[in-house]
């Protein structure tokens, strides 16, 4: 009996951690950290974790459960029930579009994970490597043959994967732009994207929770073990190519963790000092954005799920456990694997170039095959790692659609199946937009920035202001503390009322000021690049569409409330 209890408690921890872990931990975090000051990034990151991530996660859990008691599960309804004002429901539109838009590119990356796993396990990757190695044997016969063969294998897998994801530099292909992308896409990612869509929507359509809970309990330890095994291999890589003594694991770790940033100026690496990195608002914005992205804070997702909790559930410890499990996977595993591997196999220039372009999410896909080429049974582990990552991503992507489903049901009176079908159409359009007009991942990168940084920041700021200044701290914190087994920090009211909102406004304001004044990279791209303009236009169109739906929903809610109040008057 005691054993059973211990096992089920461990199952709870694994389920909580499993839900929190996703692509942001292993793929997004290392790239973002490296592009924003390396080790220096960790200072704003930890501060953002303590002052933004945890407090706002608690805010979302408390607001969600409060809204649930009033019969609402989506942000427009919850905001309206908290403030008593119909206009705030419109602000809740942000909480609907953020997860829906993130889903559009998240599912593309999910399909890369599945595709990589498939290629590793079915020998596709091995074939490419063997062909490249044989080519080296036929033209070269030096003492370093095995090293050259390994290098050739790594270069070949990188090229292969570039083609697979449809990211082929135009110079390498004579075919014209759109046709070239469509051709590569249909040969590479498309079958996996369709499969991912099908898996996601079948699970959502049918009701998924038991299966996902089961996965979190069993596959999470497998992902942890697999990641630990890869970590050990990365840390024992030493200097794989003696001809390149600088490409060592120690230098790779240094590139990730030394408190020095790096920029590329005319193809040369220029160091960015510790204080220079910290005084750049972009570093703080990126740190906060990463915390929000990986903890799913500022998405509206937590609020929706919290509305399904019972009155005596411990939402404070639930939230803290998810955040800490997420932080462990992100920093202790994600931060130790991808960048050191990318440093060794791709070189620092590639990492910086990817960071400057905002392609942090794709870096792991190019760097990790190098590690697997240097591992015993590397192709098996490559397949296993990407498959487990795909499964972890599924748990995250499934939850991304729940806020919009809940809204369509409670706001427009749609049934679950109709809501899922409508969302399926919207997200499929978006995912095709991301894949087909990829233009070397420009759409994905800018969609990620404008939603996962910009919109999330706005939403998180609004949430904390509603909680601390409109709902009232006494009411909000009482909701959070109800059923809690942990003592909430004594400073929490002060942090939520003053520190968190001021911190958010200062970072956001100073970033906006600098970006607009000095025409920073995102504003510059928005002015000049038609693909970026199209991306932002697409995000705005989705916002307008959902905003109209929210307007309709508010009218319905008003009418329902009026009818209830009329019938109460009649019965009185």
């Amino acid at each position, binding site marked *: 009996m005691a054993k059973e*209890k*211990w096992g*089920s*408690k*461990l199952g*709870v*921890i694994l*389920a*909580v*951690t*499993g*839900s929190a872990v996703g692509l942001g931990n292993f793929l997004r975090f290392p790239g973002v950290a490296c592009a924003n000051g*390396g*080790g220096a990034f*960790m200072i704003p990151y*930890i501060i953002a974790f303590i002052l933004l991530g945890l407090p706002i996660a608690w805010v979302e859990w408390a607001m969600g459960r409060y809204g649930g008691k009033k019969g609402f*599960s989506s942000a427009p309804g919850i905001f309206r029930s908290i403030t008593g004002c119909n206009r705030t429901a419109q602000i809740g539109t942000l909480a609907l579009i953020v997860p829906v838009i993130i889903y559009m590119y998240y599912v593309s990356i999910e399909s890369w994970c599945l595709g990589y796993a498939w290629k590793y396990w079915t020998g596709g990757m091995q074939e490419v490597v063997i062909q490249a190695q044989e080519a080296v044997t036929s033209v070269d016969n030096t003492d370093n043959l095995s090293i050259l063969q390994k290098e050739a294998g790594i270069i070949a897998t990188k090229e292969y994967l570039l083609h697979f994801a449809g990211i082929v530099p135009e110079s390498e292909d004579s075919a014209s732009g759109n046709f070239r992308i469509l051709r590569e896409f249909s040969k590479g990612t498309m079958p996996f994207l369709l499969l991912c869509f099908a898996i996601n929507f079948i699970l959502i359509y049918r*009701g998924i*929770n038991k299966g*996902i*809970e089961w*996965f979190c309990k069993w596959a999470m330890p497998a992902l942890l073990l697999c990641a630990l095994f890869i970590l050990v291999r990365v840390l024992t890589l030493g200097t794989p190519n003696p001809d390149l003594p600088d490409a060592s694991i*120690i*230098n790779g*770790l*240094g590139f990730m*963790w*030394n*408190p020095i940033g790096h920029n590329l100026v005319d193809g040369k690496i220029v160091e960015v000092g510790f204080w220079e990195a910290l005084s750049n608002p972009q570093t703080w914005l990126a740190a906060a954005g990463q915390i929000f992205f990986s903890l799913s804070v500022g998405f509206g997702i*937590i609020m929706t*799920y919290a509305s*399904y*909790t019972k009155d*005596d*559930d*411990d*939402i404070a*410890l*639930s939230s*803290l*456990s*998810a955040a*800490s*499990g997420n*932080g*462990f996977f*992100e*920093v*202790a595993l994600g*931060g*130790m694997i991808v960048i050191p591997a990318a440093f060794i196999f791709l070189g620092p220039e590639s990492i910086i170039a990817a960071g400057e372009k905002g392609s942090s999410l794709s870096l792991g896909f190019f760097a990790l095959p190098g590690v697997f080429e240097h591992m015993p049974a590397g192709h098996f582990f490559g397949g296993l790692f990407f498959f487990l990552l795909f499964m972890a991503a599924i*748990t995250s992507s499934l*939850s991304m659609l*729940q806020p919009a*489903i809940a809204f369509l*049901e409670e706001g427009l009176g749609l*049934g*679950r199946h109709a809501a899922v079908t409508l969302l399926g159409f919207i997200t499929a359009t978006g995912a095709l937009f991301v894949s087909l007009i990829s233009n070397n991942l420009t759409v994905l990168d800018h969609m990620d920035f404008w939603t996962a940084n910009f919109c999330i920041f706005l939403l998180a700021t609004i949430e904390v202001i509603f909680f601390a200044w409109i709902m009232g701290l006494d009411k909000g914190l009482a909701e959070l503390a109800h059923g809690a*087994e*942990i003592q909430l920090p004594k400073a929490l009211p002060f942090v939520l009322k003053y520190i968190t909102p001021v911190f958010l406004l200062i970072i956001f304001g100073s970033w906006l000021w600098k970006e607009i004044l000095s025409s920073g990279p995102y504003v510059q791209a928005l002015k000049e690049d038609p693909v970026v303009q199209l991306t932002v236009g697409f995000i705005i169109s989705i916002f307008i569409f959902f905003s109209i739906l929210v307007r309709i929903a508010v009218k319905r809610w008003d009418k329902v409330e009026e009818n209830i109040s009329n019938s109460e008057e009649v019965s009185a």
Partner: protein
Amino acid sequence: MTVSGWIIMATSVVGMTGLFFWCIRKVLITPGATEHIHSQSDLDPKDQDE
């Protein structure tokens, strides 16, 4: 890898791992944890069986 790099790495990794293990311990010693602590995956949207 500089000394400050080692310090930042060790502090970050140990800090996050420590917090995670504190939470595991807390869940293990909390009575009724299985009923009252939730993840998104075990929370049932009310419409699920429609």
